[in-house]
């Protein structure tokens, strides 16, 4: 038995679920197919940062487009996904004052691209962000960024897409895709087959499996970022916080949710096992976060953590996703390998991919994400 629609989407993470939602808004019939449950992988377990600042300048257009959706999320998906727009601050430590100059320079460039940033140092920093340790020199603050509950977002998009008429098929692993005549044929492990003239691969860390089937293998590797969460304490840190540093061990970020828990991420990543759909936190990486927290926000070291976790995320060598049309096969599109930053981008990715598929072009530039870019060539 085969089921037909205009577009088949493989992978119901935030990218695929949002794409299904926006494709429905544009009137395309959609079949969204997910191996497990919508948003169960990276999209459901990430840190939840909805952060634009710090991204490469050429990515800001996409990030800004996502930001517009984040602010309208309740209206779009019809439920609260706990988006909190209380700002984001990136800081540097005293031993790297040059980073402050980089912040200022970046802020200038970002302003031109529609992202307003404010450099905060000295007494203002201490007053507004009293939780920082003495070693924090200064920061760059983005008032219109924030954070959200990753567990809720992709499933909410998938449900909204379904309400609007998309076919959402969970617990269905696609093993094989091929183009037969004008149509793509996707065959699932359970024997089901789906066909459509357009195929969108949003399979996250598993995207390479499908691009390879169309002669476009890419150097996608997977890692598991390190996360933990504290017990609940009175809600007093509203913005999301991150460290800028060239040293991987010093990388740390945290955010507090209104229920009081503080979610902490960053530092060396963990081994990830895409075949098992699991990534396991190495205890050393958790301990490293504790050590870094002593420097970033010493008072928080009085807390206990309740839980650690990680997730399978796909990374490209140049830390940019693949997004756009296939180079080998017409009607085939990709959006995967978000290299640690795809949660914030997700709604923008879905929006742009829907636009590309429905209209043949995008108002937001995405050519730097082309699958044929040199950084992804076999030798890269």
């Amino acid at each position: 038995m085969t089921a037909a629609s205009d577009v088949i989407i493989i992978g119901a993470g935030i990218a695929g679920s949002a794409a299904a939602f926006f494709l429905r808004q544009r009137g395309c019939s959609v079949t969204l197919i997910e191996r497990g449950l919508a948003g169960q992988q990276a999209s459901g377990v990430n840190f939840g940062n909805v952060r634009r600042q710090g991204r490469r300048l050429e990515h800001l257009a996409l990030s800004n487009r996502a930001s517009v959706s984040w602010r309208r999320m309740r209206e779009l998906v019809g439920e609260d996904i706990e988006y909190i727009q209380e700002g984001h601050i990136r800081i540097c430590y005293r031993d790297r004052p040059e980073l402050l100059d980089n912040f200022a320079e970046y802020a200038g460039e970002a302003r031109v691209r529609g992202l307003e940033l404010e450099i905060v140092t000295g007494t203002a920093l201490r007053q507004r962000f009293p939780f920082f340790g003495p070693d924090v020199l200064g920061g760059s603050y983005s008032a219109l960024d924030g954070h959200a509950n990753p567990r809720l977002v992709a499933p909410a998009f998938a449900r909204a897409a379904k309400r609007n008429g998309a076919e959402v098929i969970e617990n269905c692993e696609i093993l094989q895709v091929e183009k037969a005549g004008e149509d793509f044929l996707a065959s699932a492990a359970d024997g089901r087959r789906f066909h459509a003239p357009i195929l969108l691969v949003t399979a996250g860390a598993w995207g390479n499996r499908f691009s390879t089937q169309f002669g476009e293998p890419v150097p996608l590797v997977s890692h598991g970022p390190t996360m933990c969460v504290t017990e609940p304490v009175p809600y007093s840190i509203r913005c999301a916080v991150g460290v800028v540093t060239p040293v991987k061990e010093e990388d740390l970020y945290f955010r507090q949710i209104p229920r009081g828990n503080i979610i902490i991420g960053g530092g060396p990543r963990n081994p990830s096992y895409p075949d098992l759909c699991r990534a396991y936190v190495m205890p050393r990486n958790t301990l490293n976060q504790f050590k870094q927290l002593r420097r970033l926000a010493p008072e928080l070291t009085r807390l206990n953590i309740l839980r650690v976790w990680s997730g399978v995320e796909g990374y490209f060598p140049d830390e940019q996703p693949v997004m756009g049309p296939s180079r080998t096969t017409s009607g085939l599109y990709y959006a995967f390998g978000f290299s640690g930053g795809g949660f914030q981008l997700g709604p923008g990715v879905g929006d742009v991919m829907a636009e590309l598929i429905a209209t043949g072009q995008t108002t937001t530039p995405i050519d730097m994400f082309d699958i044929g870019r040199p950084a992804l060539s076999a030798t890269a």
Partner: protein
Amino acid sequence: MAGPRVIIIGAGPAGVRCAETLVAAGIRPTIIDEGRRDGGQIYRRQPDNFTRSYSTLYGTEAAKAAVLHSCFDALRERVDYLPETLVWNISERVVYALRLGKLVELPFDALVLCTGATDRLMPVKGWNFAGTYSLGGAQVALKSQACAIGRRTAFIGTGPLLYLVAAQYLKAGAGVAAVLDTSPWSLRLAALPKLLAMPRALFNGMALTLALRRAGVPMYNGVTPLEITGSGEGGVSGLSFKDARGQAHSLACDAVALGYHLRPETQLADLARCEFQFDAATRQWLPRIDPDGRSSVHGVYLAGDGARILGANAAEASGRLAALAVLKDSGHPVETDVVDGQRRILARLERFAQGLRQSFPWPAHFAANLPDDAVVCRCEAVTVGELRRVVAQTGATESNRAKAFSRVGMGRCQGRYCGNAAAEIIAHAADVPIDQVGRLRGQAPVKPLPIAIAEDGA
């Protein structure tokens, strides 16, 4: 000979007998226990400056307690014992522990998990009020601190511990408001042939019931709990329930001891990546083990109540068996008739445990009738109604999925006290078989871990 590095987690009956067997074979194991003293749950030792006698503390089990304690005392020089040490993670054949604020990392060749059990709970509306304790908790208050949890304690739930703790309270002079067993009497009669596998234990159990009756303690069987009444400020003030004939009763009490037999403490097995399988008899997921306690992971063994709820005597036998398996797997000679002997003991105890399960079943059916405003997850204060809403609105029919959306099981206790009940609520609300609801995945740390944990040289 440099034997294998063996770590035993848990110094209860399973861990102690495991250590004893290893020491006899010339191995020096490391024993880690979170408690300040050895003995585990049943043979929990009181603080040094307490003076109650063994028979006061352990009743009919006093002799066994004394033997186990002196067994451990005799081993002290021949094992590395780390009390007050919490194992919070296991990764890549290294145990990560917290000892007096400091990090301890211990690599192992063989790991024997003897982590015991905790009470198995089904919520009752109002169980979040101060003054409701687990049955086991009520016993710990008495055993290790010589206190009762209240002036008038109502005991409700099911399992052998229900009568034992109530009788211990009575004997110690505490007020017992009632003993309310959710299991009907008829089940006990039906289970009699199995219970006769351990005639003495059966007799002791009957003696407890008799003592309670003689003292005039109101006792009911086949009850359905309705509500623990009280207030958020003042805590528990009463309890209402339906008797076997459906008649409603209410009674005044300032404390409730609640429990439905036990559940194994399996988080560490999960972190060691042992496979689990669904046990239809107890409606819960248990680590898969062979008859001697080998898990699915090479070098990881399980014994005692942390593997199967079979009681203290079985814990001793399975601790020995796990040690013998370690020895065998590391090339030590092991006599098969010794193994067979322990296996036979375990088989008999398994039969008795089946009788107990049959007599005091987990009341899965209560999940359907819990009121929406009852709290299911005490840590996160999530209600049954909220969990049902999540199931209905999001289609979440699997435990971890429902946790992700509802926060049930996401709190400090990591789902120890709500996980079993939440699974039943989900199964009923979604109309799926309980085994399909799955189990909450264990995640480190198994208990809250201070960020201030000090590392070497830090």
